[in-house]
């Protein structure tokens, strides 16, 4: 079920109304049933995978907590890791490994090949597996006690607003909220609805509109050069942001109406002044997941001479895995690897850059330095996103080489300037970025809420109908649904 579908428009109000009408003690049961229904709308069989993860991790977490020896704890954690990552590997990475090995065998002209299966990737598997896995690791580390109630745990894993594409909230944040459901609140309803409408605006007005242009260029990279390609790669970064941040807003808004607070997943990443800053603002729930459960878990040497090189190595490995998390393709591996390498370079050169600034008398917090940092960060991120968007390595390289070809500059410019849809999308994008900037400083929502009711309603109703009228009719799935 898509958030931007008619089904969800019916589903959400029905769930909200029923949820608050029924007795409190039945609410978790109802929400659990609704969440499974939401997930199984995509494919009924997917529910089994969700149930499997839930049952394994709930049982394993108990065994870990009760285990008397570290060895036993590790054994049970291994069961959880094998079950979850095995499922992920089977559905998502099996063909990737088979095809890669077959390619190697072919390259060395060796006999034999591994079979390639036609497996449909269950939606949201990367998200709910990581959510469930974080719980067992937390129990193993002694950060939290195991959840006694299977129903609440099952609801934590399957909670519909965040089931398909996150945020990957931790159990320590969600489970206490599930145990103590809040009563209906008008303030939460209104604030949740505002968040949903804002999310829909980002998705259907900006992301889908920019997507029309971006998809055309990336579908035929051999046919476009120079400015067209550069603009498409730049706009893809913003399309991805609006698409995913829009999804997250709808998810958070839906949960808020029901009385639950989900974590913020995006914090204006496009104003980041460095790559580190960017990854602290972009898909925060995934970045922190990898930080806590991969980067911190990787072995490092406690020797001052090698500690940094080991840390850098770990950083690259973490980002490489984060890239692979997005998709089973070498393109995603390169995307992650490049980000890791760029981050390491940024860290290594930090002292030298600061020394240079001090010598030239430019303040580290000056507008010039911030702007330069922002531009460089965006260029690097946009460059790595070429690998994220393109279908394969050849296409990525073609796009990169074509972006330096300015032989058709005037034709490209003419096409861009005559594409009303694209120009409107860029204007809307600029409006959104300005609105986010103002909101950061003045709390735009509160500013509007403090106005007279007639003005307030005019703004709300005007905005809602603006979204409905300028809705892009060619419905596109959320980009992160494929992961």
């Amino acid at each position, binding site marked *: 079920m898509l958030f931007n*579908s*008619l*089904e969800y428009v019916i589903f959400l109000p029905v769930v909200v109304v029923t949820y608050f009408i029924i007795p409190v003690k039945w609410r978790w049961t109802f929400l659990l049933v609704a969440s499974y229904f939401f997930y199984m709308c995509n494919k009924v069989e997917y529910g089994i995978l969700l149930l499997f993860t839930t049952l394994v991790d709930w049982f394993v977490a108990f065994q870990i907590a009760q285990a008397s020896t570290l060895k036993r704890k590790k054994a049970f954690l291994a069961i959880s890791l094998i079950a979850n990552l095995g499922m992920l590997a089977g559905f998502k990475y099996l063909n990737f490994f088979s095809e890669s090995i077959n390619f190697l065998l072919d390259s060395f002209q060796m006999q034999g090949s591994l079979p390639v299966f036609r497996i449909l990737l269950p939606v949201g598997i990367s998200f709910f597996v990581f959510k469930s896995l974080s719980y067992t690791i937390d129990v193993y580390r002694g950060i939290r006690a195991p959840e006694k109630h299977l129903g609440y745990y099952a609801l934590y894993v399957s909670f519909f607003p965040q089931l398909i594409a996150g945020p990957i909230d931790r159990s320590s944040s969600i489970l206490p909220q599930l145990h103590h459901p809040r009563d*209906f609140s*008008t303030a939460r309803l209104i604030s949740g609805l505002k968040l949903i409408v804002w999310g829909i605006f980002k998705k259907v007005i900006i992301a889908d509109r920019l997507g029309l242009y971006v998809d*055309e260029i990336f*579908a*035929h990279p051999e*046919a476009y050069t120079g400015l067209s390609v550069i603009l498409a790669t730049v706009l893809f970064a913003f399309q991805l942001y609006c698409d995913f941040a829009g999804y997250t807003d709808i998810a958070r808004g839906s949960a808020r109406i029901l009385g639950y607070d989900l974590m913020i997943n995006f914090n204006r990443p496009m104003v980041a002044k460095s790559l580190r800053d960017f990854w602290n603002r972009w898909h925060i729930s995934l970045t922190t997941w990898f930080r806590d459960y991969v980067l911190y878990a990787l072995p490092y040497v406690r020797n001052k001479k090698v500690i940094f090189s080991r840390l850098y190595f770990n950083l690259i490995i973490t980002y490489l895995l984060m890239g692979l998390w997005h998709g089973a393709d070498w393109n995603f591996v390169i995307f992650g690897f490049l980000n890791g390498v760029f981050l390491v370079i940024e860290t290594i050169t930090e002292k030298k850059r600061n020394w240079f600034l001090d010598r030239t008398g430019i303040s580290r917090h000056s507008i010039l330095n911030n702007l330069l940092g922002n531009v460089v960060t965006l260029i690097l991120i946009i460059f790595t996103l070429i690998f994220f968007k393109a279908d394969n390595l050849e296409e990525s390289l073609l796009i990169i080489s074509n972006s330096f070809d300015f032989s058709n500059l005037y*034709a490209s410019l003419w096409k861009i300037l005559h594409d009303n849809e694209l120009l409107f999308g860029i204007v809307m994008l600029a409006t959104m970025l300005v609105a986010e900037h103002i909101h950061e400083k003045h709390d735009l929502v509160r500013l509007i809420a403090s106005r007279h009711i007639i003005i307030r*309603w005019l703004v*709300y*109703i005007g905005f*809602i*109908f603006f979204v*409905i*009228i*300028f*809705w*892009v*009719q060619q*419905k596109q799935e959320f980009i992160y649904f494929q992961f």
Partner: protein
Amino acid sequence: MTQKTIIRFLLFLTVMVAVNFILDRAFKAFSVHNAINKTMDRQFEEYQGTMKYLTLGNSHNCINTYILDSSFNYGSPSENFIQSYYKLKHVLEETGQRPRNLILQADVSSFGPMIANRFEYNSYWIHYIDYFELARIKGNRDVLDKWLEGKFMSYAGNYKDIQLSIFYRIKVKTLEIYNGYRPHRDYRNFANNPNRQRTAWNKANLILSPDIYMDPSIAVYFEKILQLCQKYRINVMLIRIPMSKEFYEEECKIVPVDKLYAEVEEIACRYPVYDRILDYHDLFSDHPEYFFDPDHLNIKGADLFTEHLVKDLEQMDSASRAE
């Protein structure tokens, strides 16, 4: 929740519903496309005499009804076989009209997934299409969004139509429509386009898909049209409208054209009412001046093409009479 909050909430909802109602009604009344389509509907209902030829299709279909006697051109922009089926069903079941021949536009793009999933002007099509049946056949509940749009929120996502309606409202009143035929008022000359191949490439890639050359739902509705004609004993002729040479070359790069038409013939031949395919796709291969873009004839091209068609139909008529 206080009583005041409930009242405010209900009031807000009421305002929303009222604004939606006004916008929906205004769009239905003032939309350019609705106005044109309704004019065609009215002309069809008022049609006097024997209707020898009924033509269906999309904007490629430019059969001039001034030239082809006793005919009605009921094609409309972006119309696909699904819409054509429901319109034909309505014509045959609800109106008294019984055309002798159906000339059904069957271009390469008529069978592709792009046009199969393109449902525009739903506030007009809501009168014809059974969206629930369509959702069942397509196995896609998203079609119901179109029903909702057509029924209650006709303006949703139709900003281009709104813009057209505002700027061209007056012009629409003066548009000449005769037996459904409306000459294309686009005065560009494709021959003057310095980059014809590139323009053709763009257009072909926009409306054709390399993955599927015959959409399953289109195949179903193509057969349904034939079944309907079989039931009412209406002779069916498929027609391939002239395309520019550049466009046809690009089509062939994307779609296995011969394979597609072999399949089309195979389906059509199952029905005795199927007559033949009239293939004019290369009629003006060397005449880009008869097109205003890669795949649309201009007024002159449409007239010349219709004259060819009339000649061929007359020959076919006399041949069948001789038999």
